[in-house]
């Protein structure tokens, strides 16, 4: 036992690991700081300190074994859950993704910069005068030449500049043009080149050789938190819904918007906005019904099979091997296969039955199909655990009950079934929680459809809350992350409450060693 890992060898390996880990993470922290991602940088620093402390000191032995798992758990499970809750308090959807500062910046530099009505463009030569960044601009139509320096474009008169063979001004006294290497490195400078002509007109660089004339049609006033169009005098106010809107006409929005804190409006809209409420309630009910019915079905069939195969009947081993095949198949594949089999026009189910039924096109048929396919996927597992439970029953149970005068059905319904249910209740509850969120089944089989039934934009007849949330966030033009997060939080609360309740009941928490 002793000295298999000589203590020095162990220490060297540990130090090697720890120092390369620290080096890597320090470098990653540096990258995060470069991009001003403070949250990431702080998280990394905490991890570095925790790791070095835990693995270098003698004391927290448990921490040594727990740290890797805890780090992943916090970063990619707990943080997303907290962030989901945070996002659910915002108007957070396509068009309202960025912060307000970023939105104002974009409005001023992009939205509020209109090309002038003549689409005036300039040939541009970049370089320096002294050490000052300088752009020489030649109007392509009027051939007027400007000198752009310090954000101001100054008109030059003939003789103040040198024209090249193409009629483009390429030099002024003291001017040193950029060579190709300098131009290639000047991306940042070029993209921020903005020379004022006065009267809200600006010359903006388009690439390294051309520039164009723009009119600033929106300016931001931080004091009043408003946008002003200096050309026609329109005032835009913060409408409170993540957009600047026209003071006199709230339907006129300025894009882009920003993610606007709204506290609980995503939650309340689920219950007050009838376009959301009706589909939500129906999806909600179906999710419960589905999870409940499917567990009963799978358990029922699994149990009957376990009973049927409990006695030493002929072919038992062969039967067993064939029956658990659905459990061995990759489930995403099986679901897609079923989707094809249930197709109205060429599916093998209709061929087998000799009918022409649109299984996935009608609400109740589709719901039945979802249950049937899930039965196929799940009954082998329930067969296996039911077999285990039946075998765990005391062997003389049946005999004793028979001696006391119980009939066969009585023994089953009154004695065996309650005991089996008791043994399996943690698994039944876990299965309920799993199927409550059985995304793959519904999404791959029906996509939540048929869609027209519930009238909602995203909700369909077989949608579960989880697929509904997914579609709200990723499958519509709205990409409503805020609403999707609110739905996710509702699911968190429901599933969490059910699990807490059932764990209390099954005494897992009390019996824990």
């Amino acid at each position, binding site marked *: 036992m002793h000295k298999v890992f000589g203590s020095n060898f162990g220490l060297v390996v540990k130090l090697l690991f720890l120092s390369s880990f620290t080096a890597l993470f320090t470098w990653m922290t540096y990258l995060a700081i470069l991009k001003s991602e403070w949250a990431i940088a702080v998280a990394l620093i905490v991890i570095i300190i925790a790791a070095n402390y835990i693995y270098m000191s003698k004391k927290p032995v448990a921490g040594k074994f727990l740290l890797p798992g805890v780090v992943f758990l916090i970063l990619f499970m707990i943080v997303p859950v907290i962030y989901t809750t945070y996002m659910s308090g915002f108007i957070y959807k396509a068009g309202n993704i960025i912060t307000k500062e970023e939105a104002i910046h974009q409005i001023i530099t992009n939205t509020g910069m209109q090309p002038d009505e003549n689409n005036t463009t300039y040939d541009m030569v970049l370089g320096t005068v002294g050490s000052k960044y300088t752009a020489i601009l030649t109007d392509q139509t009027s051939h007027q030449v400007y000198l752009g320096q310090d954000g101001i474009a100054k008109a030059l008169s003939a003789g103040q500049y040198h024209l090249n063979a193409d009629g483009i001004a390429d030099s002024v006294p003291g001017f040193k043009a950029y060579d190709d290497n300098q131009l290639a490195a000047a991306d940042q400078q070029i993209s921020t080149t903005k020379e004022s002509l006065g009267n809200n007109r600006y010359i903006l660089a388009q690439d390294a050789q051309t520039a164009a004339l723009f009119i600033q049609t929106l300016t931001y006033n931080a004091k009043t938190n408003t946008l002003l169009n200096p050309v026609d005098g329109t005032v835009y106010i913060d409408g409170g819904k993540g957009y600047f809107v026209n003071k006199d006409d709230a339907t006129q929005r300025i894009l882009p918007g920003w993610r606007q804190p709204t506290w609980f409006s995503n939650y309340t809209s689920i219950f007050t906005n009838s376009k959301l409420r009706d589909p939500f309630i129906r999806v909600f009910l179906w999710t419960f019904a589905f999870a409940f019915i499917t567990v009963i079905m799978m358990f029922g069939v699994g149990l009957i099979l376990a009973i049927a195969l409990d006695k030493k009947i002929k072919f038992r081993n062969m039967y067993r091997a064939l029956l658990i095949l659905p459990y061995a198949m990759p489930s995403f594949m099986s679901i897609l296969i079923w989707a094809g089999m249930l197709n109205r026009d060429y599916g093998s189910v209709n061929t087998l039955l000799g009918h022409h039924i649109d299984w996935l096109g009608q609400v109740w048929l589709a719901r039945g199909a979802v249950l049937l396919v899930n039965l196929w996927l799940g009954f082998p597992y329930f067969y296996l655990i039911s077999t*285990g439970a039946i075998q765990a029953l005391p062997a003389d149970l049946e005999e004793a009950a028979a001696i006391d005068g119980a009939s066969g059905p009585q023994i089953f319904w009154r004695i065996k079934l309650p005991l089996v249910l008791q043994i399996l209740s943690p698994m039944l509850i876990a299965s309920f929680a799993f199927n409550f969120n059985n995304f793959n089944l519904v999404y791959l089989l029906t996509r939540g459809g048929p869609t027209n039934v519930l009238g909602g934009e995203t909700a369909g007849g077989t949608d579960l809350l989880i697929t509904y949330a997914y579609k709200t966030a990723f499958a519509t033009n709205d990409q409503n992350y805020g609403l999707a997060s609110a739905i996710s939080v509702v699911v968190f609360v429901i599933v969490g409450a059910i699990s807490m309740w059932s764990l209390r009941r099954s005494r897992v928490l009390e019996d824990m060693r």
Partner: protein
Amino acid sequence: MSRHVSKRNPSSAWRHIFIIFMIFFALFPIYTVLLSSVNGSGALATASLWPRHIVFSNYTKLFNDASIPYLRWVVNSIVLASLNAVISVLIGIFASYAFSRLKFKGRKNSLRLLLLIQVFPNFLALAAIYVIMERIYNVYPHIGIGTTWGLLLVYLGGSMGANAWLLKGFLDSIPMELDEAAKIDGASPSQIFWLIFMPLTKPIIVVTTLLTFIGTFNEFVLASIFLQEVKARTVAVGLESFVGSDFGANWGAFAAGSVIAAIPLVTLFLSLQRYIVGGVAAGSVKG
């Protein structure tokens, strides 16, 4: 006892009838996919339930058609699933060792919390994960959204909750006397872990590794959000795209691809069946 029962229940015909019906139910989809994989029409078992013209064009297409990087998908899936299985089982066994054998403050409460967390699939926080991984992408383009590594990180986030409880149950069943004896002999906690527990937990490690592998192989939601590029896809996302819009409902290629991908997995599952059934059944009794 069994004789006693069979006397009272002379005919076991109902058992056979029910079982054979269920076997038919269990095998019908498998038969269908085999059939359509050798069917030239591109549909999932058309007019006939019997093979008429057996062709292998669906199979050859998977390997010859440049627009279908099927092999890449298989490799992607195997790499991702293996890495996730190995790393997350390691993480799980570390954690469960601490929970089963070491005394520390907050042990019971952390276990309770873990039990609660395990019922939340992490894709419930999908929108948040997406936004977070986008920000990570901005700093580290190799591990953010759109990358296999980023996807692996997200999978690993769920590893503690998924495996620690199952593994702890197994470790609890290893007698305490064993490590106490080793402790008296002067072994450190890490020596006890590596030299005593790792060899003893082999069966349960096999089961959890295999189940995690299969679970990752089957994962669709996160993979479809993360891996947009055709070449980066996993088999699950790739095969789905055959019957989704990308390749115009190509059921023949889908069926062939499914058969190829399923054979090793089903074989693996059936050959380790003894362990898996044992693990699943043991879990049911232990609760």
